[in-house]
């Protein structure tokens, strides 16, 4: 089995994986980073969104081999120790999560939006989140959280 090596949350990680291994399975099963979730099998729900080289990617739709040599950030790598990232803090402050299952993907997706657009409108946030499903919140508080988080990030991080 081929070896893949990538920098995950700032640490170099390697593993021997089958060619067909998805990035999400590498993260969850090989590295034990279970914060990245799997909610579907058609690349629709977005619970698995991580950053690959700074861009949000559905890790269920990316082979581990495709991320060979890449910088990968998962939800576990976003906070600075116990200090939440501004987007995480905004989700907490605005009650942008309930069961928490879609949350890692939502937050990672939102950080990518904020990096591109420091002051997204409600409409822009709703359009951006097209690839992230939430069944709990009705999106209302997620939208508020993403806008506040983007502001708090001060135009990109």
């Amino acid at each position, binding site marked *: 089995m081929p070896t893949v090596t990538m920098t995950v949350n700032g640490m170099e990680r390697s593993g021997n994986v089958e060619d067909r291994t998805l990035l999400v399975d590498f993260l*969850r099963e090989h590295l034990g*980073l*279970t*914060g*990245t*979730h*799997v*909610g*579907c*099998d*058609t690349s*629709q*729900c977005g*619970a698995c969104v991580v950053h690959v080289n700074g861009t949000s990617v559905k890790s269920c739709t990316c082979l581990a081999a495709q991320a060979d040599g890449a910088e990968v950030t*998962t*939800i*576990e790598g*976003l*906070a600075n120790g116990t200090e*939440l990232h501004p987007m*995480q803090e905004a*989700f*907490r*402050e605005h*009650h942008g*999560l*309930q*069961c*928490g*299952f*879609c*949350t*890692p993907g939502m*937050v990672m997706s939102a950080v990518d939006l904020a990096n591109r657009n420091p002051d997204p409108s*409600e409409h822009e*946030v*709703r*359009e951006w*989140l*097209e690839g*992230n*499903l*939430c*069944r*709990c*919140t*009705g*999106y*209302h*508080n*997620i*939208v508020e959280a993403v806008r506040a988080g983007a502001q708090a990030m001060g135009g990109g991080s």
Partner: protein
Amino acid sequence: MSANGSGIGASVKRKEDQRFLTGRGRYTDDINLPGQLYGYILRSPVAHANIGGIDTSAAMAAPGVHAVFTGKDMEGVGSIPTGWLIHSKDGSPMVEPPHPALAIGKVRYAGDCVAIVVAETKRQAKAAANLVDVDYQELPAVASIEAAEADGAAQVFDEAPGNVCYDWEVGDKGATDAAFEGAAHVVSIDVVNNRLVPNAIEPRAAIANFDPATDEYTLYTTSQNPHLIRLLLGAFVLGLPEHKLRIIAPDVGGGFGSKIPHYAEEAILTWTAGQLGRPVKWTCERIDAFKSDTHGRDHISTAKLALDADGKFLGLHVSTKANLGAYLSTFATCVPTYLYGILFAGPYTTPAVYCEVKSFFTNTVPVDALRGAGRPEATYLLERLVDKAAVELGMDRVEIRRQNFIREFPYQTPVALQYDQGDYDATLDLALDASDWAGFEARRAEAAARGKCRGIGISTFIEACGIAPSAVVGSLGARAGLYESGSVRVHPTGSVSVFTGTHSHGQGHETTFAQIVSDMLGVDFAAVDVVHGDSAKIPFGMGTYGSRSLAVGGTAIYLAVEKVIEKGKKIAAHLLEASVEDIEFENGSFTVAGTDRSTSLGDVALTAYVPHNYPEGLEPGLEETAFYDPLNFTFPAGTHVAEVEVDPETGEVDVVAVTGADDVGRIINPMIVAGQLHGGLAHGIGQALLEDCIYQDDGQLATGSYLDYTMPRAADLPSFNINHNTTLCTHNPLGAKGVGEVGSIGIPPAVINAVIDALRPLGVNDMTMPATSQRVWQAIQQAQG
């Protein structure tokens, strides 16, 4: 009780969030046990077939495979039970066919469990499952209510002629018929309540383990009610005593009713772990979740309302046919009966109400509770009918509702319920004001100038939550009690652990319940932890559904805290050398009334565990448990207003404004309550406009993935305008009613009434859910001729 910084009434940030936001939640699929094997459930690809035989030899020989089990292997195991016995009009019990965990001889829906393949890895198990050779001898299928009741229809069960499970009724038919005889107006309606797939974003999963050292089974499972699973799985299916079966429902990623039932997979996994002596893990793929998670709704109804010349309701007659799917799931039979028919008084004084429900078996996924469970179906029918009556009688849609409101409480409805309290005028007025109902015609005209058809719709509704009391539900056929337990353990140094039999899968119990206890005991919010989801830690519980957690579970905790305070007073009296009757407790201090002599809860707790100077005859320790069996249902109520714009060229419906004015009883955490309302509203708008579970005639699920089944996405929804008017529930000390299902109950008829209001100028007078652009466009074309 007062709203301090973290007490009752404060929007405290949630305790749960730190772990969920940092990826440290612990959902079932995140858990791995040493030596664990992986199970793959092989499901029937066809809706109805005899099983001629199953050849597992090739699968058994595949790499990594440890075992393949079929229905034959599990033949001695009990049937998956259902929780509610319904009796038909003639007094006969419902037809209750067996539900083997793994199909025996016959499969009855596409998705029915046929075999489990256990291997070293997930992929090996799935690959080997492809090698299981099942001889399906296909039979004609019935995939809808219409097909099930047709002459000569295929029979799902031989013992259920005509595929009928029961033919139930509630209310006084004679009195209702008489009301129609003298009526000035009769308004009729036919409605379909579309079948939905619950779609919690976390797929179901389970890990079962058997420990030969203790003979104890442990099952991690994605459940809303772990003790209920222990009861059903242990006592009914596998014959395991409670002390040898531990059910853990850790963090659960949403339920919405679909994680109430005891599923076949839980029994299969647990039994298999016992056979192999190794932990076995199974995680449902989404594609299998669509065809194995219980579905919701699926009613066809016809109803008529009798009115006098002034628009006063005289009588209501409802006939409903409900689809139960292929087997009776845990709450399947009570959802279309005791959670549906008894809702038809709504907020109105209709003196005579009658509802009959005939429920059918079909070759489809079992149907069970889904957010609202019966109450959305009832509310949708009633509020569509009331709107239609207003139009046909030429009355104002608001006034026809207002003039029929119940205003005196307690109010005994003609369909069993007794409402304890409410103020329907107040929520109506609040909603009209907050939605600027009066200013709507100007907005309609402005939209028309842009080529859009704008409409506004309303629904005024009640719901019944916290199903109770146990003696009553027992007399109606429930096979369990519907109480709740709460335990409060004050530790020696004054921190507190709270144990609840409810389960939080998004509702924020760890926060809300801690607020109650912190407030009542005067203990720091941070010093209170709430424990749930483990049958080995919690005395007992019935779980979370029916918006019962705060009203029933919160009250149990409240009563346990009261017991703690009572015991604390005895200890304090001893320490303060006063009489117990003179001890008052407030803000964490026990004080001798009228003096400044006091001692803290912390000192009392320490004394309870280090009882050197202690009241004679009193047990050490400071921990109390309460079981609370409510006296009645609770009755949240409210008014929802939806405003839509329809593009007549495309049929696209845009929900531009949603206003809720709700009475959910005492609000502990307004932030969490608003979140619950938002989620319910989104679910309800999804049903009204987007979501539809469609079966082909042959029983194949046509909407079996997120590519085919339209889930509401952020851009499909507006922001929500939430308002409250509170009346307190009179029969629980918190005054709590419930909030989890309000949105999905109240908003669907408001949305459809708004769509019809928008399209009425084009000649459209009816609309079926979901009002997709295709359906709306077709309705416009037909109306325009």
